């Protein structure tokens, strides 16, 4: 039933043998240094041409016969009781097919869903919204985190305090650690609310069958199965009666898990009208209502001894996820650096603003920024080189190796010691450490099908949030079957395929690739059984490579893969594979570090990032092109967080003032620095592919590295993100 396999795990110069027990039908994990034919080679995104030519169908592109267009009315008020909603005028408008009241009690943020309509055109739907009369009874509100904590602040939730439960962690004795320290620092850091800004806004097309017991939803989601389950519960249907499809998805970043309000609205309207209904959110709603990364205020104390070793790390943090929670940022404080005494305290403050939702490494970019800038402030005070300071306080050998690779690629020694340049423009460099845990989970199942014409299809109920999932699944199956990648097609994004997990938390690659590999291995066994008698060999003696199935000991005895497929009885042959539980590995965490160089105009306070070097480990890299693209995206989002992005709320009106693409400052092409990415390959075990996720770890340290570089350039820390010109000038004492 199971077998023992010895794996050589680790990285160059630091390997060890580990014996693991794996199920019999699990392919032997790819070994360190094993020669693979397509895995690890750069393969262009398989659906790139479809996306570039517009042929890829996103939710927005779904058009069904008889389809209606839905629209959602949102509250312009931040806090109000609804006395009455009058839908009648909207209902009587020609072309309107359904009108729903969504909320009939209390509104808690400007942008909350109030009512919805379905009409024969989106223009008519918009007209109908204007006819809905809502009688609001204004209530006091608070959008500012500090004010929300005051004794007599308006309550966001009538019953409870605006200050959520404090969550604390503690190891050792921080007070003692600070006492014995040779140097201490204490400072407060803040970060702003960042919105996800998915290129494709949230939206869905929903359709019921005539009996209203089968629901199909096309939607922009990170988790077709989680949407299915939520909708099944909402509409009291068996999960099997709900089908969710997401062929292409224009970004999620954590804001598109589960059945979000507009999906439920689309489905309710479809139920009410008996025809399909499409609801796509306008950009403003996307900014205000679909989630965000909470802000933070982080009071940090550090202590170090004479040798530059940390003796204490203390964090007192608060953040506001609006009417939602999850504003904590303690993660990096607890684990990036080694310290005997660490205490963290996190509190979520409720405000009358749109709810937070998970966003790319929830809490970590905020925490990493505060921790790393504090580390730099300490290094300066203690007179230690910043990189050396980090080396001394890290006991992770992967990170140690990555610091060296990055420092060399970046030219740290030289850039860190060269003058900041004279005149108004000053250059500075910074380094920050990342961390994430992306070993994946069991659960996904995959199907791999060989057709008589030799084409191979992979089917998994995962979805591609832009990371290149289709591409890497095809690569893994192609590797196992000894085929070029273009012979394999990945079909994903449909709950009719076998189950997979949501694409978030860097889960996709490490959770799906092992299932696909196992399925491909099982398919290969079946094909070997077809080929064996023809080749006069036992199935066990065969191997698949270069498009052939051949006898291992006598490679000249071979059959083309396609010729074997011609002998498939019936039309196709398929096999399944499952993602088995994680087995032992080298480490379950990922390190990673990023170096940034900035140029600061000290007279105007304008900062430009000129160069970023990123070094990351993600186990085995399946496709360096897809992986690099992930890291590029993580860095750019981090630069936006560091320099530009800020959801700004007017304290008197209680509304977001910048819910547009020109007022909400997203970086553009000219703001993109030179980026060099190096992957530090670690044989990590854990699964048969040894792959780890990369989406989050690539983003954790980016803003921190930029902030540290700004500090280096101007000699004073800017302790608040985004680092806008006013803040730089204020830090320099110029404004």
């Amino acid at each position, binding site marked *: 039933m199971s077998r023992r396999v010895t794996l050589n795990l680790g990285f160059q110069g630091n390997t060890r043998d580990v014996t693991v027990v794996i199920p019999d039908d699990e392919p032997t994990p790819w070994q360190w240094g094993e020669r693979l034919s397509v895995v690890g080679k750069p393969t262009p995104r398989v659906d790139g041409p479809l996306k570039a030519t517009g042929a890829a169908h996103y939710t927005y592109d779904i058009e069904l016969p008889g389809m209606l267009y839905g629209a959602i009315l949102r509250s312009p008020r931040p806090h109000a009781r609804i006395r009455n909603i009058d839908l009648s005028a909207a209902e009587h408008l020609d072309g309107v097919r359904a009108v729903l009241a969504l909320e009939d009690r209390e509104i808690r943020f400007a942008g909350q869903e109030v009512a919805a309509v379905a009409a024969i055109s989106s223009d008519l739907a918009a007209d109908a919204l204007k006819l809905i009369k809502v009688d609001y009874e204004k209530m006091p509100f608070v959008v500012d985190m500090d004010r929300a904590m005051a004794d007599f602040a308006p309550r966001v939730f009538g019953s409870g305090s605006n200050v959520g439960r404090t969550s604390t962690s503690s190891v050792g004795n921080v007070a003692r650690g600070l006492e014995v320290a040779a140097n201490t620092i204490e400072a407060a850091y803040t970060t702003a609310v960042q919105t996800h800004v998915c290129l494709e806004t949230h939206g869905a097309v929903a359709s019921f069958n005539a009996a209203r017991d089968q629901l199909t939803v096309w939607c922009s989601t990170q988790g077709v199965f989680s949407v299915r389950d939520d909708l099944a519960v909402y509409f009291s249907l068996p999960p099997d009666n709900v089908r969710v499809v997401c062929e292409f998805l224009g970004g999620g970043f954590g804001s598109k898990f589960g059945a979000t309000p507009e999906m439920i609205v689309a489905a309710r309207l479809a139920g009410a009208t008996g025809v399909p209904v499409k609801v796509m959110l306008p950009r403003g709603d996307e900014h205000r209502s679909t989630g965000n990364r909470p802000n933070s205020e982080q009071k940090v104390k550090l202590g170090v001894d004479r040798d530059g070793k940390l003796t204490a790390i203390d964090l007192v943090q608060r953040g506001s996820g609006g009417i939602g929670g999850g504003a904590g940022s303690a993660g990096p404080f607890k684990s990036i650096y080694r310290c005997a005494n660490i205490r963290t305290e996190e509190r979520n403050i409720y405000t009358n603003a749109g709810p937070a939702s998970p966003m790319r490494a929830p809490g970590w970019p905020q925490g990493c920024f505060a921790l790393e800038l504090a580390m730099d402030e300490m290094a300066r005070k203690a007179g230690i080189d910043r990189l050396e300071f980090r080396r001394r306080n890290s006991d992770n050998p992967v990170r140690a190796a990555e610091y060296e690779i990055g420092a060399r690629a970046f030219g740290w020694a030289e850039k860190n010691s060269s003058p900041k340049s004279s005149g108004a423009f000053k250059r500075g460099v910074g380094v920050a450490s990342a961390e994430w845990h992306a070993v994946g989970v069991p659960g996904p199942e995959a199907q791999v099908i060989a057709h008589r014409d030799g084409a191979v299809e992979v089917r998994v109920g995962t979805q591609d949030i832009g990371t290149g999932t289709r591409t890497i699944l095809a690569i893994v199956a192609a590797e196992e079957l000894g085929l070029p990648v273009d012979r394999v097609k990945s079909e994903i994004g449909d709950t009719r395929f076998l189950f997979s997990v949501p694409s978030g938390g860097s889960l996709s690659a490490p959770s799906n690739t092992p299932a696909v590999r196992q399925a491909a291995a099982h398919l290969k066994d079946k094909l070997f059984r077809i080929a064996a008698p023809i080749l006069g060999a036992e199935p066990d003696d065969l191997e698949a490579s270069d498009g052939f199935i051949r006898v291992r000991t006598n490679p000249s005895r071979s059959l083309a893969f396609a010729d074997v497929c011609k002998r498939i009885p019936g039309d196709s042959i398929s096999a399944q594979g499952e993602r088995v539980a994680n087995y032992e590995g080298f480490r379950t965490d990922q390190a990673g570090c990023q170096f940034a160089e900035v140029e600061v105009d000290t007279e105007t*306070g304008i900062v430009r990032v000129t160069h970023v070097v990123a070094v990351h480990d993600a186990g085995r890299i399946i496709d360096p092109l897809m992986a690099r693209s992930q890291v590029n995206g993580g860095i750019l989002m981090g630069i936006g967080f560091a320099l*530009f992005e800020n959801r700004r709320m007017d304290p*008197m009106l209680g*509304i977001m*003032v910048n819910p547009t693409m020109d007022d909400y400052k997203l970086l553009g092409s000219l703001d993109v620095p030179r980026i060099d990415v190096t992957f530090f390959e670690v044989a990590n075990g854990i699964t048969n592919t040894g792959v780890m996720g990369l989406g989050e770890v690539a983003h954790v340290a980016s803003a921190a590295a930029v902030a540290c570089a700004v500090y280096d350039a101007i000699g004073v820390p800017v302790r608040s993100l985004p680092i806008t*010109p006013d803040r730089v000038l204020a830090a320099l004492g110029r*404004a």
Partner: protein
Amino acid sequence: MNRFEVITPADLASASRLLAQDGHVAFAGGVDVLDLSKQNVESPTALVNLKGLKELGGIEVRPSGELRLGAMAKLSEVAEHPAIRARFTAIAEAAGEVATPQIRNLGTVGGNILQRPRCWYFRNPDVNCLKKGGDTCYAISGLNRYHAILGGGPAFIVHPSNLAPALIAMRASATIVGPAGERTVELEKFFTLPTVDPKRENSLKSGEIVTEVIVPASPSSVRSHYLEAREKQSFDWPLVSVAIALDRAPGANTVRDARVVMGAVAPVPWRSPEAEAALKGGPLDESRARAAAEAALKDARPMSDNAYKVVIAKVIVRRAIMSVAGLEAA
């Protein structure tokens, strides 16, 4: 966005007649017209399409050296025009710094100077501010980091046009055709402060169409330059901009005449006679440039969040002067 029809008039006179009707709005490149409709700031019933009106087209440097910019000339054409770059440099630079290539390929000269302000209260469909007939300028007690530091009140918007400061620095005037015939107005006098009417930014009357902008010949002794500071390098509005035109006698280092016009600092393009006077006082060097920059912002009255704009404005004015003067920063 409400529903509207698009009318393409046969000639200028009918365009003007159409525009005299309620709810009729001129449609040039359409960049701002459509934004304003989508933001429910304006709800036109008809767009009067100016494309194809021959009086509004073209760019021409006349034998006299005078520059004529048809109102429908595209920003990208202005930015790339060799003669404008050589002799009316600030104008080409100002056009070239606008937004992105896509917007420069759509946006026109007329549309650029007539676009409405970008204030986030004004542009918010849920806010009825002073400029939309309400009674409050929310920037006063609200978030005003991008608002006026000069000339504000009772509304505190900043004028958004890149082109306008450059055109005013080069003494341009607009030709306007309307129900009452044709008139010519110096651009400097065309823009109006909120004290005149908080709902408007200029004196264009109902039914009037800007047909062209005329820039008088610029002597070879004049050098001009447009410079802006913005947070992002792509797709962003200036925090502060300035256009400078300096006339120096050949070989001499003293300024005969100067124009300093700032953008994004006030509800209108803001000409600074104080800075111009400071420039004319003696030999042009860094300290004179500094003095002129100080003078330009002498009357600045920053709001709660935008004192930094005063600092940046001084730097941008000084740098622009230094650059036109061919001086290196010390």
